[in-house]
């Protein structure tokens, strides 16, 4: 039965959505609701060809990207894969990770980088599974992961009060 199978996936979907929305719980649950609605209406088209969890992650991800684009929340219109790597300077030793800063920095990442970091780092997907969920070639997934991680580190440094330059 679709309902019990889908219900078992809801906590995981909520976590994923919460991370994509960088902690905005209301927006995240709206996304989950839209995702479940779409999944239930298309249940017949799933046919168990891919793992249920990956199918749902892909639906939610597409809805989220639609919304990001609709809101014009993209930081810029440059293809993120064409951006030059920012030079990753190792941060100072012993810097405490402030979770609030991490959520803030995550929200400032380009959506394409954010989703790869979340799928890999939080959802624990393999790179091949990320390619499947995002409909993106493996090479692109890898480059988004690398740039995303470097960018996240950079944003954390910029945001981190400990690293503010004292004049």
């Amino acid at each position, binding site marked *: 039965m679709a309902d019990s199978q889908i219900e078992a996936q*809801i*906590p*995981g979907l909520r976590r994923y959505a919460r991370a994509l929305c960088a*902690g905005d719980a209301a927006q995240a649950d709206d996304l989950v609701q839209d995702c479940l609605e779409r999944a239930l209406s298309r249940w017949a088209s799933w046919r168990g060809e891919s793992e249920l969890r990956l199918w749902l992650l892909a639906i939610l991800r597409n809805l989220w990207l639609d919304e990001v684009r609709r809101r014009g929340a993209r930081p810029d219109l440059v293809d993120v894969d064409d951006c030059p790597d920012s030079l990753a300077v190792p941060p100072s030793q012993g810097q405490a990770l402030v979770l609030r800063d991490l959520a803030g920095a995550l929200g400032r990442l380009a959506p394409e980088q954010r989703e790869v970091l979340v799928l890999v780092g939080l959802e624990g997907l393999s790179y091949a599974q990320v390619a499947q969920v995002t409909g993106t070639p493996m090479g692109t997934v890898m480059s988004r992961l690398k740039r995303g991680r470097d960018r996240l580190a950079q944003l954390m440094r910029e945001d981190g009060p400990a690293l503010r330059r004292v004049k």
Partner: protein
Amino acid sequence: MSERLGDDELHAYVDGLLDQDGNDRVEAWLADNPDQAERVRLWQEHNDGLRRLFDPVLDEPIPARLLPAAIRSRSWRNRRLLALRVAAALALVLAGGGGGWWLRGQSSTEAQVAREALAAHVVYVADQRRPVEVPGSERDQMATWLSKRLGAKMAVPDLSASGYQLVGGRLLPAENGAAALYMYENSLGQRLTLYVRRAVDDGRKDLLFQGRDGTLAGVWTQGPFGCALSGPLPREDLEPLARLVWKQMGTARTS
């Protein structure tokens, strides 16, 4: 000093995607490369931070609105709202319309059938739990039963080629005796009803229309019956469906 490891391998290490040999190789190399070890440590810290930030969501109770049962009823309501919006738009069209084929204000047989049909449509289409007495799966028994009650043979038209499945039917009181009401539904949840009762064939070959509150009825007489197909559709969508029913009812009458 060992050969420089690629970033691919470092990321795979952080993400736990290497086997034991791979892990050992990376760790040995990182021990000799503190700068790279610091990068890797940071990535691990960020992965760990993501889990610490968002794993607690897994233990939150699921909001009721996200449960599949709630989603199903909500999506049904959404489809109904969509139908109502279509109906509201249609009502505006009807208010401004009024060609010769409209029945507004007439007292003909067709106008009477249309009024009864629209009243029945509005009452039963809104009934989510028990819109019909006999389910569509018992099409033949229903046809036999209702033909008997109306005193003339009648087949149940098939609109599945147009996307409307038979929900079922029921018996109703009409001004001059019994009436049959068949209900159809498409995948968007839009419902049509076919209302049939005895009527004197006035020889008119027109399909006539009557609208009320966003529902349009296409009405005609054929043989011993007055018929009306009603639904939340504009005339250009309802008319071909009504003609299809008319044709199918005509075939049934001679059988």
